[in-house]
């Protein structure tokens, strides 16, 4: 076992102690209009933000945004379908997933669902719809981390727009491995 030898080496090598800073002492950026900041950013990150209209259901908004689609899974509905293996979502075209909170500074949405069961769905689906309560839109990551608890579900992810890559000559391409399109619906 190398564990104890490594820890012993660190103990003799470590530099003199310094203090841990208070990260809350520094003022972070604040937005007058968080929704506008979020919506403006996500448009450049392979996504779109929409405010659900009055009298409009989530499904109506999704149908308007992605008119023709294949298999749809809607985790915001009670009694939605379950999968017996993470692979079973491989042919999902549209996934509607509840997001707990959104961040204005980087257009990210925190996604973490009970039981850690739907993890693969967020990344296998071709189009991802995240449904977030408008009241849960915060300024920065510092505000976000105040609210989230990973231990709730054992896994959580900030998702900002579509899966993307610029690995070929720095050309930005949407749809590397995960969703090719993203829609954030504020309700």
């Amino acid at each position: 076992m190398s564990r104890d030898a490594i820890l012993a080496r660190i103990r003799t090598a470590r530099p003199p102690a310094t203090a841990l800073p208070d990260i809350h002492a520094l003022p972070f950026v604040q937005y007058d209009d968080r929704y506008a900041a979020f919506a403006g950013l996500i448009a450049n990150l392979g996504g779109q933000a929409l405010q659900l209209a009055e009298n409009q259901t989530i499904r109506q908004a999704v149908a308007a945004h992605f008119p023709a689609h294949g298999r749809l899974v809607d985790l915001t509905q009670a009694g939605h379908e379950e999968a017996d293996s993470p692979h079973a979502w491989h042919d999902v075209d549209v996934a509607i997933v509840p997001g707990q909170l959104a961040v204005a500074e980087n257009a990210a949405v925190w996604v973490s669902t009970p039981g850690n069961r739907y993890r693969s769905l967020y990344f296998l689906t071709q189009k991802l719809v995240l449904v977030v309560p408008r009241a849960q839109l915060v300024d920065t990551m510092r505000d976000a981390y105040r609210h989230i608890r990973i231990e709730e579900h054992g896994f959580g992810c900030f998702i900002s727009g579509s899966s993307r890559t610029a690995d070929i000559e720095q050309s930005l391409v949407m749809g590397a491995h995960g969703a090719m399109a993203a829609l954030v619906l504020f309700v």
Partner: protein
Amino acid sequence: MKDDSVNHARAARDFLQDHAHASWHDSAIWWVRHKRDVQAAQLPEWEGLRELARQIKAHTLSHLDVYLQEFEAKARANGVMVHWAADAAEHNRIVHGILAAHSVKKLVKSKSMLTEECGLNPYLETRGIEVIDTDLGERIVQLRHEAPSHIVMPAIHLKKEQIGELFQRELGTAAGNNDPTYLTHAARTNLREHFLSADAGLTGVNFAIAETGAVVVCTNEGNADLGAALPPLHIASMGLEKVIPKLEHLSVFTRLLARSAIGSPTTTYTSHFERARPGGEMHIVIVDNGRSDILGRADFYESLRCIRCGACMNTCPVYRRSSGFSYSYIIPGPIGSTLGPSRDIKKHASMAFACTTCGSCNNVCPVKIPLADQLVAQRARAFDAGAMAKGKKGGVLALRTLLGHPKLFELAGGAMRKIVPILPERLNSAIPYSRPGRELPTMPAQSFKQWWQQNRKKP
């Protein structure tokens, strides 16, 4: 794996033979540096954030044993298996042991400079395990049997025509179609199959949180997530310097990482893995491999603050004009040029000289590592270890003599002012990238001392 007998100056000269390509490489990477500046300018607190990041990392390194033990205890309580590896060989043995115990035939990997450092792929391949790198850039260099030339943009040294040809051969894409979107989606389809049929996934680790035992992985492609969510076995390999004290500290690091790395406000996915997926198993391998040695060196331990954003290479005038393959260590650019020589000064001495000491890396580094200063200190080590190139060593010794003898210095200065303007290379040095070595400055008519005596000595 990289050939560690590479000499930076020689390899850079070869790279610069293709002027057009070298110039493209330079400006493509400079563009990323520019995007970083645009992002930094949008946050009034940017410099304050860098300072916080520096302080958090400095504090953690000074209590590293404490935080690693806390992290281990929390991860174990979450049902995660934690392993410790003293060096690359032990890391590879541990990973292979876990894979063999699960009869794994195919492993999907996301980006991990640590596994490159350890040479994991060839180790597993010779033991009959198929290893698929899934980050697009890493997949490209894997298919070409190359190492990554940049830590964030592994295939930045290649033109799309080369990738088109490669994919035609390996993935059956249409001949002559070099459209990046077409090629990316062809790789997507191919790699989906691998994700769905893999027996295990291995990811790197960007941050490990002592407070909760979670590891955080940042990608734009989503490959780490598919690799960790689909197969029943997830292994995360991390250098022991990746630990941070608390979850809230991610509010500093996630704000700096993608802005510094690619000039984007965040990566698409910032995933926090704390427990295995239902029915699955999760392992974390904590690797030392020379890091505890660096921790004990007053001149160099600050390099352990690195969050591998790549900003220092994007800004580096030498990296941009010489490419990652000119560096003998697996990590190129300023950070590689201190880590490599720290590991083995004899092998990687030439890297310490791949630097103009302009200090731009110090100014962009999100955790404020004094990189340029470390490179100067590494040069001193290269001299002491007798690992300096002969000509360079001669130059240094001659300069020492000159600087120690003022009369001789004056004499030599006078001679230089006459000889340099008539050197043959001076006469045809108009073509960029064509000149060997360093450009000599325009020679003044007189020395500063002479000028001073004429102009300022008068009462």
